[in-house]
Every structure is written in structure tokens, then in C-alpha cells.
């Protein structure tokens, strides 16, 4: 078993209203950041897990996302990185 650090991004599904992203974008405009076209706010999860291999770690994480970490109705997830620690 090796310990892996896995980073996961969970983001609101496209097309769904993202009031949080909109509020942040508006605020950035008010602060003078005129170049901001859009903002989306999601979650960044960092898991440390014990797994047999990198692909095992990835698969476990993918399961966790399907079951718990992301809301299947409103969110998409992506495994951003997996690395041994």
C-alpha cells in the first residue's frame, strides 16, 4: 500500500444557475477588475488515501465522487491530480 494525495475539483454543472459565481464576478467588477468575464465557484478537495497503485487511487476516488463527494444532479467532478506522498 502506498499513500497517495489526490486532488479533486467539483464544479456546478454548466447551464445551472451559479449565483455564487455571479456574485463574485460582480464584486470583482466593482473592485475594478474589468477583464473578468465569468467566475465559477466549486470545491477543491484534497484526499490522502492508501491504495495499491496510482490507478487504484484514481478508481477509489472516482467511486467516492460518484457516491458522496459530488452531487450527481447538480455537479460535475474531475480528478485533477494523483501523486504518491
Amino acid at each position, binding site marked *: 500500500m502506498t499513500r497517495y494525495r489526490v486532488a479533486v475539483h467539483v464544479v*456546478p*454543472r*454548466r*447551464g*445551472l*444557475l*451559479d*449565483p*455564487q459565481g455571479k*456574485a463574485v464576478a*460582480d464584486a470583482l467588477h466593482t473592485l475594478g477588475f474589468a477583464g473578468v468575464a465569468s467566475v465559477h*465557484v466549486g*470545491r477543491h478537495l484534497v484526499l490522502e488515501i492508501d491504495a495499491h497503485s496510482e490507478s487504484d487511487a484514481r478508481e477509489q476516488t472516482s467511486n467516492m465522487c460518484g*457516491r*458522496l*463527494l459530488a*452531487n450527481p*444532479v*447538480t*455537479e460535475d467532478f474531475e480528478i485533477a491530480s494523483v501523486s504518491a506522498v
Partner: protein
Amino acid sequence: MTVTARPGDPAITPALVAEHGLTSDEYDRLVAMLGRTPTFTELGIVSALWSEHCSYKHSRPLLKTLPTTAPYVLQGPGENAGVIAIGHGLAIAFKIESHNHPSAVEPYQGAATGVGGILRDVFTMGARPIALLNSLRFGSLDSARVRYLFAGCVKGIGDYGNCVGIPTVAGEVVFDPAYEGNPLVNAMCVGLLKEEELMLAVAQGVGNPIIAVGARTGRDGIHGASFASEDLSDASEAKRPRVQVGDPFTEKLLLEASLELIHSGHIVAIQDMGAAGLVSSSAEMAARGDVGVVIDTLKVPAREEGMSPYELLLSESQERMLVVARVGREDHVRAILEKWDLTAAVIGEVIAEPVYRVVEGDRVVAEFPGIRLVTDCPMYTPEARESDDIKRRRAENVHAIAERAEEANPMWTLLELLASPTIASKRWVYQQYDHTVRTGTVVGPGGDAAVVRIRHTDTAIALKTDCNGRYAFLDPREGARIAVAEAARNVACTGGRPMAITNNLNFGNPKRPEVYYQLKEAVAGMGEACLALGTPVTGGNVSLYNENPAGAVYPTPVVGMVGLIDSLAHVTRSHFSTDGDSIVLLGNNTDEIGASEYLQRIHNVVAGAPPHCDLAAERALIDALLQAIQAGVVRSAHDCADGGLAVALAECVMMDRATPTGAHVDLTHWAGLPVRALLFGEAQARVVVSTPDPDAVLASAAEHGVPAAIIGTVGAASGLLSMRIGERQLTVSVAELADTYHEAIPRIMQRSASAQDVALASDSVV
């Protein structure tokens, strides 16, 4: 004007018609009304407006039978909310609405947007929301999925109301396997307005501009159009979201802006874009005013590019309103919205021609003759027949059910009932709701009804939702009568005179004769009770097709009652407070145990007739109780409902956890009744009162012909609830009662400290 199909619109085929949920008769009706084949846009419009949700096609004929008038009813059914006068030139607008199906799919957003919708229904009347309530039904908490739905709905309701800043003051939660897979989420809102500021959603004034206000329109929740999104789009769009996401922050701004608009005199009508969005709000406002309208979908502010008229008309994006302004006042309207960082776009106009017309720039994409679009909708009175299974269940001799060995000690049974999530304290729920914001909540959740004071007067309103679905399942007429009576009793226990109700009819598929029978009977029973208790129906909502794989949910006609307390001095709480007070039972005990929580929880049996509801007795009870309260002789009043007299007494000694008391009770007078019926039977028209002046209470009761008896004394010193029945002496410690009652739900939810819970916690933005 000639209506032309848009390039790229699908051809109208029988399959497309069927996918839009129209029967062939309904389609023929549409063709006859138009005198031609509809366009795709028109088909979409009609599928939405003639849907059950918008048209009430299976329920309207029944609803017409309900009593709706009283001298103080300013607005009955038909508007966004009902309105009653409460004196001092003030009025209360209130309404309940369901969000059952969205909540089953996505509990957090489903419940949240339900709250958003009902808030808008109330503030469009010109009323400032002052209280929210909710009535919830879930399957058994033993299931992880149910815990997820329960936690999600509660959090969704809380986050939305809390953010908008409206206190959630009362409600009910029932857990029963009958709701597995199809939870019920009904939200009620109560608002306060000055009588002269009442605003109706009636379009009028040829040339007046129609303005879309609030959030932009996206592709969310396009009604009945799931197939269309697949047909019309590439693969990525096939995932087009059907859930709506709520934005309570925008709602708060919309609330303030709408009230400012209404008070400004610049507008003549306003309505929220709820179910079937723009099309239903514009068509309904036009129909009420009997005027024509034209809408240009190119002018609707859209969240995404390339949205079709079909999509823009049917989208159910949240936090939007439709306004009819006075001509020439557009800039004033815009200025008010800008102040609140919201946008306003003129998207149409009231016209002289009696048509409902939708254009996309120069092209007319839909046009219907006059208000027939709304009024020509089909109405159905399907066959009604009671299910044999239910008849059999009702007739079952429940007295023959043998007691379990543990019941030898009825205090075991009492603790079991208090641990039932349906009876146990709902603090886990309402602690997540801000119930103190707006500094009006005199009695918050945890007692019988909630009490909200009316500022600048000495009055208050009392609010509660109620319904026992098991009763309605076993006898829909009696169940609905009891729902009204129980809500009225709860309101009276706090010192309120029951005034009027709103209601939410949650039923299964009305095309099944046994379901339509339930609906018909329940509406009849509700009408009888409202008539007898003098509480007209001022509005409501119908939610049909609540089914799970095992069949329909229990028929659940939820009643939302508003009562008036004429002086703050009369506000009465439910729990005992003062040593030495006498305990008086108003009403009588019977041997009824049918349909009880006792049978369900202890014997897993759903059978027997629900307790008899004698409406004259209920009315007399309410009158007697209010008279005693107003005479100042009632220290506390708590009605007997789920779990019967023993549960009511237990609640009286420990429902306020901070100040538990105790009591000695003697029920020997009823020693002839089966003990389980006496303690746990759910006979109606009973209230437990504590009083320093029992004679005065008994005199009030006698005056109204209400049976009454002194049954005991409040006393905290012993730390016990003790009950004597003839030779039998039953005792249980108040601490144990309190722990069982208050910790039951937290313990269950903790056990699952769950997956589910966490998903929600990390989910939500708040």
C-alpha cells in the same frame, strides 16, 4: 396576424403531442380553438398551461365546492395568495405550495426553490412576508436515502428562508413508509399588508408595458420538455438541467424591489414567474383582466445564448417577476430595480385585440384567441371508487389486536411513542431555521401553533399546518375534517380564533378511481369542517401523481391555518409552568384506537377507523377554550393529537426542555376504558389545560356544553409524571421522557452522521 413555424422546429406529430402530455381529445380541442395546426411553440404553451399543475383539470370542479367567504375575506382563491382582514386596516396574505417532485430529485434545491416560490406568491400581493411554515413527509428514517432527503430538504428550506430573512415559525414532519420515494414538501408563507395596498395580478390598460424583472431566464426546469431538449440539441445539451437552483440573495432584493414598486404606484399588476414561467404568468394576468397581450421573446433577458421562444416561455428559472407598468413609467420602474441591482426589460404590452400573442422579433410564433387559452382548458371528473383494501382495513377490529408483552408496562409504550420520529421533538429541524429574525415571534416552533405579533397593535396571529395522512388514508373524508379541526385546535390553544385556511392537496394519480375517490372525499370533508368551524378556504395548491413503486402516498390534505389573537395578554403556551396548577381535560376520552400512531409504531398496523370527528364538539371546545383564555384563567393549553392523552401529558411536562416540570394525574374516572385506548387512543376534541382556577375553566366548558374534568396537579418536585388509573399507579421520570423525546431524531441523524449530511454540508453555499 399569421403565425409561422420557426425554422428548425420539429413537425407536429402524434408522437410529439403525446410527449407533451396532451391526450388526443385535448389536442383536438387545441386545434379547434386555433382553427389550425399549432406550431411547436404553441404546443409547448398549451402543454404547460393545460398541465395538471397549472390547470387543476382534475381538481377544479371539486375545489369549487369549498366554502370561501366570510366578511373578513378580502381575497379568496384565484389569486397568488388569499387575503383576510385582521383589523386596524391591516390584512394577512397567505398561501401554501408544494415542491414534492423537485425535492425528490434534488432535496436541497427542490425544497429551497419551493420556499422561494411561495414567498413570491405572497409579496406579489403587496404583502411583506412575516412568517414561513412547512409541512414535510418522508419515508422511514431507517433508510439512508430518506435521511438524505430529510436533511437536504430541511437545509434547503432553512438556507433559503434564513437568507431572505423571514422567520420559519412552525410546521410538521411525519415519517411513514407510505412516503418512501415520494416525499412531500409543502411550504407556506404569511405576509402582512395594509388593506389599501392590496395588489392583484390582473393585467389592464391597453398600451401598458409588460416588464420582466429579476433574474435572467435560463434553460432550467423547462416543463414537460425533457424530450425536446434531447431532440433539439447536441449531446452536451442533452444534459440540460431540469433542476432549478435557488438564489435567495436575489430573492431578497426582488422582495424589496417588488414592494417598493407596488407602493410606488407605477405598476398595475405583478405576478411571479413560477410553474411554466413566463407563459403562465402572462397568460393568467391577461385572462384575469380579460385583455390581450403580446410578448416578444427576443427582449427577454436570457442567461444563455440562442434560447428559443419555446424555452424562454417555459423556463422555470427562479427569482423572476412579471410586471404590468403604467405606460410612460418604464424609467421609474427601471430606477427602482436598479437601486436593488436588478434588471428590468420591457418584453411586451397590453393590447386591445383579444389575443395572446408571442413574437420573436418580426415573426409571430404563437397566437391564441383571447383568454380561451386559460379558460378553455379541459376539466375532468373521473370515476371515483373506494379501494376494497382500504374498506377492509377500516373495518378491521383493532381492539382484537393482542398487546405485546412489553405493554404490560404502559410507560414502556409511552417511551416508544415519544421516540417515534413523527412524535418526537422536531428541534433538530427547526433549530436550522431562523425563527427569531424580524423580532415578531412570540411563540416559536416547539409548542402547538406559532404566534407572531402584529407590530403597532396589541394583536398577534397564530399559525399552524396540520394533517394526519394515515387518517386520510383510512377515511379521507374524516381525515380531512380532522386536519382542519386539529389545525384549529392548535391555533386555539395559543389563544387564537381560527380565521381561515389555505390547503395543499397531496394525492396520487387521479386517473385511478381509488385515488380520485380519496380526493373527492377529502375535499368534501375539508369543506364540511371549514363550514362548521367558520374558517373559509382562501387558496391552496394541488399536487397529484405523488406515487412511488408501491402505489400512491397517503392522501395528504395539508391544512395551513391562520388565527387571530386579539391581545398579547392572551398568548398561551403549551407546557405546564407552575407548581400547584390544576390540570383540566377539556373533551372526553373514548375507546378509539383505530388509525393511531400507537397501532403503527407498536404493532406495525395501519387499520381501523380514524377517531370520530364531531365538528360541533370541536367548535364548542374552541369556544370554551378561548373564553377561558380570554378570562385569564388558562396557564397552558395543549391539544391531544398523535399518541393521545399520555403523549400530550408527557409533552406538557417536558416539551420546554429548559424548564421541565412534573405532574400527578388521576384517570380513574375512565378506568372502564382499555388502558391503551385511554392513554394512547387519539380521540378528537381534547385539550389539556393547566390553570390556577379550575372552577372558572370548568364553568367555561359547561357554558359551551364541553365535557371537562380536573385530572391532576402540576408539581415539579417529584421529577415524575405519575398517572393513577383505579388501582394502577404508573410512573416515569420526567428526565427520561425528556431525553427520549428530545434526543430521538438527533440520535438517528447522528447514527448516520452521514454521507448524505456531509454532501449537503459541503454542497451548499451558505
